[in-house]
């Protein structure tokens, strides 16, 4: 792959400079394999510089794919060098093959999920002993800020509190029982007075990855007296719990910052900031002392203790929102306390701080400059690659109008408009008649999809579509959706043809690939802006504006467009694949939306394919599909997107590659 070589040339400075990088590469072009092979090669060349590769991906199937690639690479190495390689690669995918760290220490390559590195609760267990000289790669990282935020946010409902209550009672019982039998055991006193010296020493000597939940100051201090003994601590938690319960008994929305919350808690129940900060650590110590094996039962109380520690530690970057009911069901009381992190850099900071090279990569990372800003780091390299193709295998089209010239848009004011819905229906109908096998259509939300489909049914559009293809719908029910997916694939396979109606940000839009005939066309109905009325989002936008000078609109558009890119990117998996990408909203034609698409899509988006009518779209699509159906052999790609060894070694080709790399 030609792309690989360009990629390699760009990675090199990243590794050399021991810095961080942001790279965008279209999916299916061998992103994974090129990264792996480069780092393995680098490791072979400079074993002292890079000792370990940590490869983080998002889902279990993706991790498995990485392992498969890695296996191929190892086979290739063995074949080329003839020597048995001494690499130990380790994949931590699901819970059933979770392993404990001694092995990780020795492995050269570790493949696992983001959460093992980002989520403070798990990272502590798994990743803290990774050495500083590791190279960390985050694959499919277009959502990394959300992962960071999720890992630091806490949601407390009444049920959590109830379960916590039972936890406290169990603790109390256990303590009193142990007290009767083995009083000596409860003398953790010494250790607690000593503070967390041990952890502190470890951190100073740079053995562990620091845990964002365990701030530095805590390590310097001893656990305050008020929670040193087990009974006192349980009592303390009980107090805190009562306070939270009282706070949840509200009838209107409350939003406050962490300091405000602390002040309030001090005034109401006289709980000081200091003991709160030690909650998480103290609970852990207690659980260890009591020798409680099944920690999963105590998830509620652990959650509360984490909340206590976080809220008292960080005065910035977090907000507390208490809502008496959900927005959708304003009549049913279901109070929730959102303790929401607004700054993704908090969770990822230790990762950037610790490892010499962190590479963030995905098929869709545009615009590249926003990631360093919101994650607060300084990349050595940022690059976006396009595909070098022997034929134009993707065809992005922006449909802005119906045949009646009515603008097509999912804009809030016009989304109920009869003409808009009818035009969307006509678009799907026309496409179903000319696109073979599978079409995937994305809507902006479940509610919007339900409305539109109901309306299509009334207008008889649905019936017409069904003459061409079967229709499957993604629902919020996971089992139902996977059933629909299975049937969808079957219908594509045996020539009946099918349409999958799904939702951007839903399960289908992330992680499920529609290779070849499973997705010959992707249609985006509307721009999938996030639900802007959510208070958490509002708070986050405000924070972004104040802290990073990112305007609300800019971020919202960025967020919407990365989901669009994800959705349409599902259809193209590799160079032999081809697919139509139809953006059905006139707003896509604007420069601010278009400019945020990945470069590999943008470069195929010509002025001629903006703001089309349905008829024009049909003509272009027909032509494209016929072109793509022409025989396409591997030899055609040679010299263009595939290079033989001789071509690779030739001088002018090397120059050409260097030139391209420079541009990138």
């Amino acid at each position, binding site marked *: 792959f030609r792309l690989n070589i360009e990629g390699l040339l760009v990675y090199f400075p990243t590794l050399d400079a021991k810095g961080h990088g942001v790279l965008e590469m279209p999916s299916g072009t061998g992103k994974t394999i090129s990264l792996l092979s480069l780092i393995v090669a680098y490791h072979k060349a400079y074993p002292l510089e890079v000792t370990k590769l940590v490869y983080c991906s998002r889902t279990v199937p993706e991790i498995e794919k990485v392992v498969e690639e890695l296996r191929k690479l190892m086979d290739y190495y063995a074949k080329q060098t003839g020597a048995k390689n001494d690499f130990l690669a380790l994949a931590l995918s699901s819970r059933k093959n979770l392993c404990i760290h001694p092995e990780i220490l020795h492995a050269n390559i570790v493949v696992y999920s983001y959460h093992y590195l980002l989520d403070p609760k798990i990272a502590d267990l798994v990743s803290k002993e990774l050495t500083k000289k590791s190279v960390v790669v985050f694959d499919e990282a277009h959502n990394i800020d959300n992962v960071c935020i999720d890992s630091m946010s806490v949601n407390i409902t009444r049920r959590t509190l109830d379960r916590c209550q039972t936890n406290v009672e169990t603790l109390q019982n256990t303590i009193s029982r142990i007290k009767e039998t083995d009083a000596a055991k409860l003398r953790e006193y010494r250790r607690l007075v000593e503070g967390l010296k041990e952890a502190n020493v470890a951190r100073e000597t740079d053995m562990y990855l620091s845990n964002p939940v365990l701030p530095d100051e805590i390590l310097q201090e001893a656990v305050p007296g008020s929670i040193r003994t087990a009974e006192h601590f349980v009592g303390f938690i009980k107090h805190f719990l009562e306070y939270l319960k009282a706070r949840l008994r509200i009838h209107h929305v409350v939003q406050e910052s962490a300091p405000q919350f602390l002040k309030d808690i001090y005034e109401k129940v006289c709980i000081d900031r200091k003991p709160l900060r030690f909650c998480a650590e103290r609970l852990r110590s207690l659980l260890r002392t009591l020798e409680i094996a099944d920690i999963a039962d105590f998830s509620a109380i652990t959650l509360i203790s984490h909340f206590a520690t976080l809220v008292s530690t960080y005065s910035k970057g977090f907000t507390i929102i208490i809502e008496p009911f959900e927005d959708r069901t304003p009549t049913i009381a279901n109070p929730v306390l959102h303790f929401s992190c607004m700054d993704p850099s908090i969770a990822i900071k230790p990762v950037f701080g610790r490892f010499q090279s962190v590479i963030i990569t995905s098929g869709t990372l545009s615009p590249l400059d926003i990631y360093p800003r919101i994650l607060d780091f300084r990349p050595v390299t940022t690059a976006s690659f396009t595909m070098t193709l022997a034929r134009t295998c993707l065809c992005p089209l922006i449909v802005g109008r119906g045949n009646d010239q009515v603008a097509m848009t999912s804009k809030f004011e016009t989304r109920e408009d009869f003409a808009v819905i009818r035009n969307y229906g006509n678009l799907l109908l026309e496409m179903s008649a000319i696109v073979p096998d599978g079409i995937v259509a994305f809507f902006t939300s479940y509610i919007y999809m339900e409305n539109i489909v109901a309306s299509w049914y009334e207008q008889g559009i649905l019936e017409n579509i069904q003459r061409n293809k079967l229709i499957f719908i993604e629902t919020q029910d996971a089992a139902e959706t996977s059933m629909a997916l299975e049937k969808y694939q079957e219908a594509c396979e045996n*020539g009946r043809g099918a349409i999958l109606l799904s939702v951007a940000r839903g399960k289908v839009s992330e992680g499920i690939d529609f290779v070849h005939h499973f997705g010959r066309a992707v249609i985006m109905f509307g721009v999938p802006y996030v639900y802007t009325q959510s208070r958490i989002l509002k708070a986050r936008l405000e924070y972004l504006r104040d802290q990073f000078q990112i305007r609300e609109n800019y971020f919202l558009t960025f967020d919407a467009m990365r989901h669009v890119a994800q959705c349409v990117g599902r259809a193209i998996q590799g160079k032999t694949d081809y697919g139509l990408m139809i953006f059905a909203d006139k707003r896509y034609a604007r420069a601010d939306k278009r400019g945020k698409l990945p470069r590999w899509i943008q470069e195929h988006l010509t002025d001629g394919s903006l703001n089309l009518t349905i008829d024009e779209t049909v003509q272009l699509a027909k032509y494209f599909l016929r072109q793509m159906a022409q025989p396409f052999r591997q030899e*055609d790609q040679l010299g263009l997107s595939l290079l033989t060894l001789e071509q690779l070694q030739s001088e002018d080709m090397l120059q050409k590659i260097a030139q391209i790399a420079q541009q990138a």
Partner: protein
Amino acid sequence: MDEEPERAKRWEGGYERTWEVLKEDESGSLKATVEDILFQAKRKRVFEGHGQVRLGMMRHLFVIIDSSRSMEDQDLKPNRLTSTLKLMEFFVEEYFDQNPISQIGIITTKNKRAEKLTDLAGNPKKHLAALKKVVDSTCVGEPSLYNSLNVAMQTLKHMPAHTSKEILVIFSSLTTCDPANIYELIKTLNALKIRVSVIGLSAEVRVCTILTRETGGSYNVILDESHFKELLMLHVKPPPASSSSECSLIRMGFPQHVIASMSDQDAKPSFSMSHLDSTGEPGLTLGGYYCPQCRAKYTELPVECKVCGLTLVSAPHLARSFHHLFPLEAFQETPLEEYEGERFCEACQGELKDKSVFTCLACKKVFCVECDLFIHDTLHCCPGCMQTDRTS
């Protein structure tokens, strides 16, 4: 109201063309234009066809014509159905011209059903008449790939193993409505060594890709009408015989053509045996071909004797089929710049303008692309070699 869509389509036609030109400009040096790829593919097929492979001489071919709703689409003028049928007529003629001892049958599929239009037969007239009749029929519903393949298979599976069994599907729709799992049928077809090829009129459909790949056929999608014709003509040439097809001696009769005139006293007018299955007026004729085995009379060849089942052919028929056994070797292709010599084609005497020239390996004569194709597709012998043969 009726004229409205017609006009809209014409306008789009113009639009399409301007865009086509634009497209090529933009693709620049990085991407090979589709025309280039197509040209190479054309050449490649010539080469493939002319390796030292055995070609089937006796072919049994079923053509399945999709007549579903999608055939009413007007992207071929005046619509897909009319255009297809017109080309089919041409195809049938060419087919019998090149493969005189082969047979053809036509099946149409619409409304989820398959209907046999003509049975396997070696007489072009009947097929042409049937094709003319279909033009007026309406196109409704979905096609059924399964049903139509099944109909073809029922007949083909009884054909002897030394013949080449083929199905050609002209598939306009993008969907098929099947009563059972088509992949089972594909397995059966594969086991019966029936080769299925598909010409798609709209886009690449997965099930056709698999169907053709599994059964060893070809799958092409048309770009426009001329490309359609080109693809259809590819099927005129017999495919390589599968190595496992058994070789056997076939009994054939070479009937004498007896010409009798009215003035001849002995001549008695008689019916041809072929009137048995034709609905047309049976005519009394004087002369004809008489089966050497049973003396049954036929007016046209080639035919299978209705009485004794003997294949009746004429010697020129056999000779014409014969060249498929010894195909003309492919000419050597050299770029025009490297070619030094007189710049005109040996065959058409035209100037060599294309980017490559073709040299016959035997007589070293040079030809242009068009003549190269003509020599290999139609003449089946090199004019240069013929000349030298005669002079020596």
